[in-house]
């Protein structure tokens, strides 16, 4: 392995690393928070639950987030009341998903977000993301961001349209917009 090849390889790894880290993929803490929040909803029956990660195959950020969540969930993720089973759903196929949890990955376009929310409303499914602008834009019900603190926001109209029922005490403790 000559020097130039090594440098090139390191550069590639470095670039990949930089580009990989440039996306705010879902963290273990965020998935744990989502798992607990889901247990506060009566709309998702306890037990095995399909956790549909909706992604855009053409978006690097979306693919990276999908990969991160795959790594976290693996063969199954034990939530307080559920066992999450991951389903990777391309955004163009979301209308056929029967999952009650639709997770919106990073890097989705506005149209893609709307398409997912439309499915969530039709199927009384929870749309959730770690990308808060989706919620602020009215295209997702619930946003969870765990950084130096825990930020949880809920889009009130989307929540009502999706006919979801969350623990009332929880709703007093989050930001509704």
């Amino acid at each position: 392995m000559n020097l130039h090849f090594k440098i090139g390889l390191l550069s590639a790894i470095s670039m990949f690393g930089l580009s990989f880290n440039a996306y705010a993929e879902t963290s273990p803490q965020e998935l744990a928070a989502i798992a607990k929040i889901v247990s506060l909803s009566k709309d998702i029956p306890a037990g095995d639950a399909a956790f549909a990660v909706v992604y855009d195959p053409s978006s690097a950020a979306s693919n990276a987030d999908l990969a991160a969540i795959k790594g976290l969930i693996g063969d199954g993720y034990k939530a307080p009341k559920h066992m999450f089973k991951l389903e990777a759903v391309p955004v163009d196929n979301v209308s056929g998903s029967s999952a009650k949890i639709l997770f919106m990955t990073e890097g989705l376009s506005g149209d893609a977000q709307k398409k997912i929310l439309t499915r969530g409303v039709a199927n009384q499914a929870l749309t959730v993301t770690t990308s808060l602008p989706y919620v602020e834009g009215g295209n997702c019900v619930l946003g969870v961001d765990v950084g130096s603190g825990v930020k949880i926001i809920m889009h009130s109209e989307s929540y009502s349209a999706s006919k979801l029922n969350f623990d009332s005490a929880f709703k007093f403790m989050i930001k509704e917009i």
Partner: protein
Amino acid sequence: MKNIKLLAASLLVSTAITGVAQAQTIDYGMMESIFGEPVTASATGKPQRASEAPVSMEIISQEEIRRSGARDIPQILRRVAGVQVQRSYNGRADVSIRGFNKPYANRLLILVNGRQVLSDSFGQANWAGLSIGMDEIRQIEVVKGPNTSLFGFNAESGVINIITFSPIQDDISQAQVKVGTQEHKEVNITHTAQFDNQAVRISAGELDADGFNRDSMTGMSAATSTVDKKNKNDWAGRRVNVDYEWQVNDASNFRAQVGHNTNNVRQMIPFAIPSRSNNDFDFAHLTYATQNKYGLWNANLYKVSNDSPSGTTGFENDLMVAKLDNLFKIGTDHSIRVAGEYRDNQLSGAIVGGVDDTFDLKLLAPSVMWDWKVSDQWNITNSVRYDHAAYTRNANTTFGPHTNANLFDRTIEEFSFNSAVSFKPTATDTFRASVSRGLHIPSLIELGGSTQVATTPTSLGFTGDPGLETERVMAYELAWDKKLPQHNMNFRSAVFMQKAENLLDNKVSVIAGPTVLLTFDNFGDSDTWGAEFGFDGVHNNWLRWGANYTYLNTDDQAGKGLLYEDAQPNHQVSLMAGFDHKNWEFDTDVHYISSYKSKLTNAASTITVEDIDAYFVVNARAGYNVNDNLNIAITGYNLAENHREWALGKISTGPSGANTLGRSVLANLTYKF
């Protein structure tokens, strides 16, 4: 009875129109794990994250209680900045927040799951009278400053709301044995049985120990010659508590709690007079919570009985409280809580004149709270409550200067409020400015007591004064909380000013007979300002630590002999640390309290003062986890020095003794099953 019917009707209506939402009571454990911090409803009545509460409050967790090895709740409260704990005996302490502590302190409201547990006869907390065990406590919420507008008239200086574990959500089952110095013997057992949507937790305990430290007793010879050891020294109690919870459906939750406690505790009553007090406490508490399209409803109905068969000062106090509140949102930014409270509080027995005499308080109090989230950075909270209290006595008294029953038929009307503005300029900084008006409506004994305690060698009487005015406090506070995540550390600070008027205190006078009369009076006004600073954190993921400092400065206005400006410590420092090493647990807390004066009634039946020297209190615990179920521990209390925290008075009858507090050591074995 009419009010109970109204409450029942409200419950039925609420039940009938439910059906849209999820469980109602706060799942404290789940919420804490989601938000990464404790949650509370004690600040405004609205469930919220502790960091967003518009008041200065601190939350003590079960793990902190367990690791402290605290024998009782006052011991753990000593760790909180702004809280004054003054212990008179091993089993007895008086607690205040931000000053104005006194024997039988009654300016602080103590609740267990929202139920008042203090004796409403005088409004003082009998800590040994709780029917719950320390292991049942999920968290202790300490609200500093007046919160009368939310909780009522004893919340003048603050509120301590003890939240127990939910039988449905938390499976707590363990047995515990403690033995140690001062002949301490204690056993506690707690068991939770969970079924599909119902659960019950039963706990019981028994304790027998000396109220004094034998090695450090002084001045006891005269007393011990006339009073047997058991009467002199005991700190004993027996308790049982049953907590049943039923998740009726996704929208409704029902909880029924009943308990009994009987205890004998050596304590210091008003006038700083030492006394052995026997008390029975019984309670029944029904809670129903539900949600419908009109919001979150909470109904509470409870009865607390306190029977104290103590001869000429014996009494029976029956308190019944019915509360209904509705919390709802308008839009996304406004939360409104509308509440109503009715209480019927009856005091009977020798202390009000005789076994057939009763002094009764009926109180009606509507209140409203409005919480407005103006923006991500700004929040405004306002609450107001109106209290209408009507007192009646059933017969003329035969003793004291106020014999005509009509003198006791009076009405007190007062309002209280809390207003706070919170500003969060960054994710780690919170600033608060608040103003509040708190009340202490005179207690039934302060208003209506009437008993001749002794006739020889001198005539001695104990009476209330039906003309007493309500004690009022205006409080102003600026606070700054900062998280320092890079250092795994939190900082809290507050400066405050309290202007108290019509302060109620003890008075000794002589009336015709002659009789020495122990009574109460409004002594005038007093201003206190102070500051609290505190840090806590975890160093290098192993050392948990905390440090705080409290400064108090009181200025009594010209009046009739107030002594608060000298009677509270100016400086108070607390240091806490704990760490684990393999299966070992080590914890300690150290407290410094500067000197102050203690007011007492002397043998000549006049009120005087004694100096209390500055003192250190050092507690330490070492525990060893034998396995996941078995823990053994040894805990030392007050290891630094023998000291006094109150001066004890002596009246012309009865024994007195010194209250020097000495070292204690307990061995503790806990088995979880």
